[in-house]
C-alpha cells in the first residue's frame, strides 16, 4: 500500500512518452486495469453496435443500472460483488425479455424498462444501508473505478466476454436480419423472438462487464457512443462494426491513462472522450451532407442553364 502511495506521489505526466508509458505499466493494478479495460471495450463495442442498431440503448442502460444493486446486495450478503452484478443483470434481462412487446413491435416496452431501472436503484440504496457500515466502494459501483481490479476479476471478465462474443458470432447474421427487417426474417424462418431474448441476456452480461470499469450509471458511454459514432461514419456494416470496437478501445485506453495521471475519476474521462468523438463525428457528418447538397444543387442549376 505504501508502495502504491509512493508511486502515485512520484508519478506525473511528462514530455517523455516512453517514460509515461513505463510509468503506466509499472504497477500491477494498472496492468490489470488495462487488461480489464481492453476486454470490456471489445465486448462493449460488439454488443453496442447491435444495441444502437436495434434501438435498445435504454434497455442497455437499465441493465447496467441493475448491476449496482447486484454488487451492493452481494457485498451485503458477503459474496462476490462480480458474481452479484452478473446475476442481477441477467435476471433483469430475462424480466425485460419476457414481458410482451408493445403492439408496434419497436423494441421492448419502455415503461417496463423504466420500472426495472427505478426498482434497481431503490434496492441498491436499500442494500447499501442494510450493509450498515460505510460502503466505500459506493462511488466506484456507481461511477466507475480502475483501482484494485484483481486477477480473478480479469479472469471472470475474459471468460464471460469470450462467451458473449462466441454466442454473438453464432447468431450475428440472423440477428442483423431480425433487427433490420423482423417480418421478412420471421417469414424466412429466423426465430425472431428467441433471438431477441438471447440478445437481451447477452446485453445483460455485457452491461455487467462494462459496469466494472465505468460504474453502473456510465455504461451508456462505452456501450452506445462508439457504435453511434461509427455508424454515422460509415454505412457498411462490416466497417462500422470494426470501427466501433476500435473507437471503444481507443476511448478506454486514453481514459485509463488520463485517470491515472490525474486525480479525477475514470467514468468522467470515458464519458467525455466518448462524447467528444460523437460530437466531432456528428458535426463533420452534417457539414459533409450540407456540402454535398450544395454541390448537387449547384450542378443542377448549371444543368438547367445549359
Amino acid at each position, binding site marked *: 500500500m505504501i508502495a502504491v502511495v509512493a508511486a502515485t506521489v512520484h508519478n506525473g505526466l511528462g514530455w517523455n512518452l516512453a517514460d509515461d508509458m513505463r510509468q503506466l505499466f509499472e504497477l500491477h493494478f494498472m496492468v490489470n486495469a488495462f487488461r480489464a479495460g481492453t476486454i470490456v471495450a471489445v465486448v462493449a463495442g460488439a454488443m453496442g453496435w447491435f444495441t444502437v442498431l436495434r434501438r435498445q440503448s435504454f434497455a442497455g442502460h437499465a441493465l447496467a443500472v441493475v448491476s449496482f444493486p447486484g454488487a451492493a446486495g452481494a457485498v451485503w450478503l458477503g459474496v462476490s460483488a462480480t458474481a452479484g452484478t452478473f446475476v442481477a443483470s441477467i435476471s433483469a434481462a430475462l424480466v425485460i425479455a419476457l414481458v410482451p412487446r408493445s403492439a408496434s413491435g419497436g423494441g421492448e416496452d419502455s415503461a417496463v424498462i423504466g420500472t426495472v431501472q427505478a426498482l434497481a436503484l431503490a434496492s441498491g440504496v436499500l442494500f447499501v444501508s442494510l450493509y450498515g457500515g460505510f460502503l466505500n466502494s459506493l462511488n466506484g459501483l456507481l461511477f466507475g473505478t480502475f483501482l484494485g481490479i484483481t486477477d480473478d476479476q480479469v479472469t471472470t471478465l475474459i471468460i464471460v466476454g469470450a462467451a458473449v462474443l462466441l454466442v454473438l*458470432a453464432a447468431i450475428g*447474421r*440472423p440477428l442483423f436480419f431480425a433487427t433490420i427487417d423482423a417480418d421478412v426474417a420471421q417469414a424466412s424462418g429466423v426465430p425472431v423472438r428467441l433471438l431477441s431474448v438471447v440478445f437481451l441476456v447477452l446485453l445483460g452480461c455485457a452491461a455487467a462487464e462494462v459496469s466494472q470499469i465505468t460504474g453502473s450509471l456510465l455504461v451508456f458511454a462505452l456501450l452506445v457512443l462508439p457504435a453511434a459514432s461509427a455508424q454515422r461514419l460509415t454505412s457498411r456494416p462490416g466497417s462500422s462494426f470494426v470501427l466501433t470496437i476500435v473507437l471503444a478501445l481507443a476511448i478506454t485506453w486514453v481514459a485509463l491513462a488520463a485517470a491515472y495521471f490525474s486525480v479525477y475519476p475514470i467514468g468522467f474521462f470515458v464519458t467525455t472522450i466518448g462524447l467528444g468523438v460523437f460530437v466531432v463525428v456528428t458535426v463533420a457528418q452534417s457539414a459533409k451532407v450540407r456540402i454535398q447538397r450544395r454541390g448537387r444543387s449547384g450542378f443542377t442549376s448549371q444543368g438547367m442553364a445549359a
Partner: protein
Amino acid sequence: MLEFSQAAVRFGHRTVWSDVNVSVMPGEFVAILGPNGVGKSTLIKVALGLVPLSAGTATVLGAEPGQAGRDLGYLPQRRSFDQGLRVRGIDVVRLGADGDRWGTPLPFARRWSAQSRAQQERIEEVIEMVGAGQYAERPIGEVSGGEQQRLLIAQALVRRPKLLLLDEPLDSLDLPNQAAVAALISTISRDEGVAVAMVAHDVNPIMSYLDRVIYIGQGGAVSGTVEQVINSETLSRLYDTSIEVLRASDGRLVVVGDPEAPSHHSDRHSGRPLP
C-alpha cells in the same frame, strides 16, 4: 403454386373468411382484392405458415404452408425504414440471400469462396433488374419510399423464388411510382417466370398486367379475369349487397358502394376484447 380449398380462418369467435378457394398457377400474375379489413393480408400469412387455417386445406408449392422455404419470396405490407438507419440498400438485399444462415459474415469471403462470389453476382443482378443500381450503396433510410420498395422487391427475388407473395407493394407510393413498380413486378413475373400473388386495394394501377384477380368476401372468394370478377353482378353476389362497378372514360374501374369491412364483429358489442 398456391392452392386453398374450402379454407377458413377464425380468430376466437370472429370469422375472418371462410369457404375460400384460391389457386395460383405457375408464372401467373394474380391480384388479391377486397375491401379493407376483409383479411387479404391474413391470406398471405396463411400461405407463409404464420397463421393456421381453422378449416380446409392450403398447399404452397406442393407442401404445407411454412415448408416452402427458399422457393417463396415475401414482401410484407409497407414498412418504411427509419431515416437514421445507417445500413446500405445492398446490405438489406443481401439479407434476402443469406440472412437466415447462422454465423457471421467473414471479411473477404469473396476472395476464396466461389459460392460467395456467385451470391454477390446474383445480388448485383437483382439490383440491376429493379433499377436500383444508382442508390443501392446509399443508406436505405435516406432513399425515397419508391426506391426502398424496389430494393425490397430485389431482396425478395435474390433466391430465385418460384412464387412471390406481395402485400400491398403499391401502398403509400405516389401515382407515377405506383405505375412504375406495377410495371416492374409484371416484367419480373414474365422474365423470371415467377408466379406473383399480390394483395392490393386498388386494381387500377395493375389492371393491364393481371392474368387473374381474386376478390375476397367474408363468405368466400371469386376468381377470374378482371372482366369476369369486377362487375356489378359478381361483386353484389359476393358481398350480398348492391354494388355498382363503373368504368371511367380512361378505362379505370370504380367500385361504388364498396362494402365495409365485415360487419359482424359480435365481440365488439358483447364487451369481450377482440383477440
